[in-house]
């Protein structure tokens, strides 16, 4: 395999069972999903050499379904990033244009699929980490409803936001992969036991699609907006009713997301002390000195920044101003979705405000965070969302994002299948 895009951190060729719905098909796995006997680093030097003693639930299901696991894919360290440049093991390049980032944080998974190195891949999506790289690399990426796919064996970043989901070249492939990975698991207590057992029906006839004005606001490249508006017209031509809507809480979504995810991350990442796994701490030193030394040496800058932000947001005197308010904002975003889904079946807009950035273009952390504005609302509300390719601007792919009601992943996938069928016909 010629991995000139640095899509993989580890390559393998582990066939699953000889029969099953994915027999003979290759699946790449993001490196924050535990694979027994295969190194799992989350793109971080602090986990270099860590070999999980058990499989994530989704990995066991893939093996049983006959999939060949062909490697672990590169990612922003612990999922913290929108470009895959924040990996401890070097950036992944976008196969469409190697001067550009593949998006993140599941950039390795997207690049592997886009380059044809794997037929399908698993990614994880905390604030857009499946949909962003899918849009930037010109593939399909789906964030299922929170609670639809077990997170057992997923190395936690922000538990209340993140989900594992499928990435592939077609809507049919991501549907086939979701059928396999959504089987119930008592080990994840947020799992609702509602497996996806659907075969896509490429139709939007009779569906109402809401188009929130806020998804086409400031910061959205007008050429990207125009492509997406054309795509929504295509869905209208397929029989959908398209209506303009408004989502006023969008203005709070990004702040609510970043405060919530950094707070959860500051707690989750406390376990990386180098003692039970990782590089080893100097046992002769005092706990805090040894702990600080290991973390200062092995965590990247963006991870340290997010731990600091989260620690700050949760600290005495600031909790009410930041974390408390972020939870109110989050509830208001969810209420906005609930209100809209009383009158529409789907919401549509761009996945990302722009096409793929140049490598090194987003040097300032806040400008990188702002790029997530269109993807984080779905995570805050836990609703399903897909990115499906809808053309290109300057030769770089653009993604159409479709969001649906919680646990109505089927309608989102049907609409994406209808769009795909129409544009590839």
């Amino acid at each position, binding site marked *: 395999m010629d991995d000139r895009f640095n899509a993989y951190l580890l390559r393998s060729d582990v066939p699953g069972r000889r029969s099953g719905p994915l027999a003979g098909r290759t699946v790449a796995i993001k490196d924050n999903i535990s694979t027994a006997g295969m190194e799992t680093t989350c793109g971080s030097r602090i986990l270099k050499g860590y*070999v999980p003693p058990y499989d994530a639930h989704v990995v066991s299901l893939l093996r049983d379904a006959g999939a060949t696991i062909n490697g672990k894919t590169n990612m922003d360290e612990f999922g913290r990033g929108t470009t895959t440049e924040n990996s401890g093991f070097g950036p992944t390049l976008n196969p469409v244009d190697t001067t550009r980032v593949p998006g993140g944080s599941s950039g390795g998974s997207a690049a592997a699929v886009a380059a044809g190195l794997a037929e399908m891949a698993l990614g994880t999506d905390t604030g857009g980490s499946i949909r962003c790289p899918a849009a930037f690399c010109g593939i399909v990426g789906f964030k299922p409803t929170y609670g639809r796919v077990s997170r057992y064996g997923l190395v936690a970043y922000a538990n209340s936001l993140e989900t594992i989901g499928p990435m592939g070249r077609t809507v049919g492939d991501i549907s086939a992969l979701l059928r396999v990975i959504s089987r119930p698991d008592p080990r994840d207590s947020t799992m*609702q036991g509602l497996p996806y057992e659907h075969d896509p029906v490429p139709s939007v006839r009779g569906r109402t699609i809401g188009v929130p004005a806020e998804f086409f606001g400031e910061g959205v490249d007008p050429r990207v907006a125009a492509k997406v508006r054309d795509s929504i017209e295509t869905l209208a031509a397929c029989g959908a009713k398209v209506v303009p809507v408004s989502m006023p809480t969008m203005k709070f979504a990004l702040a609510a997301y970043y405060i919530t995810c950094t707070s959860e991350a500051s707690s989750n990442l406390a376990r990386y002390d180098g003692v039970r796994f990782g590089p080893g701490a100097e046992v002769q030193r005092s706990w805090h000195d040894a702990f600080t030394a290991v973390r200062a040496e092995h965590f990247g800058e963006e991870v340290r920044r997010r731990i600091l932000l989260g620690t700050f947001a949760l600290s005495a005197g600031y909790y009410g101003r930041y974390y408390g308010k972020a939870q109110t904002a989050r*509830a208001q975003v969810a*209420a906005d979705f609930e209100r809209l889904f009383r009158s529409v079946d789907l919401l549509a807009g761009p996945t990302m405000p722009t096409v793929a950035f140049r490598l090194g273009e987003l040097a300032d952390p806040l400008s990188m965070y702002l790029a997530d504005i269109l993807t984080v609302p779905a995570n805050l509300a836990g609703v399903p969302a897909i990115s499906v390719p809808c053309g290109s601007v300057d030769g770089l792919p653009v993604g159409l994002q479709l969001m649906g009601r919680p646990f109505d992943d089927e309608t989102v996938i049907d609409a994406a299948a209808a769009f795909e069928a129409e544009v590839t016909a």
Partner: protein
Amino acid sequence: MVNESDVRRIAELADVGIPAEVLPTFTAQFNRILEYFDILDTLGDECTAKRPLHTVLREDVVSPSLPQEAVLANAAEDEDGFVKAPRVM
């Protein structure tokens, strides 16, 4: 707004360490991000949404767990079946 000594103090609380030479840049970036978070000061109090989830409870029963050797395999140092850690006191 936070100053450099606040950032150093938070870094100590979080045990992540922060080199002196990056402290000014880190502090400036930190403040730009906090300024952006000020949007939440315009938030109303109304909040009625409930997530369509319920807590899944189960009986607390003993189930098989990983063998001790498998768990210790990733530790840098172990002794008598335990992970060896830096001293706490």
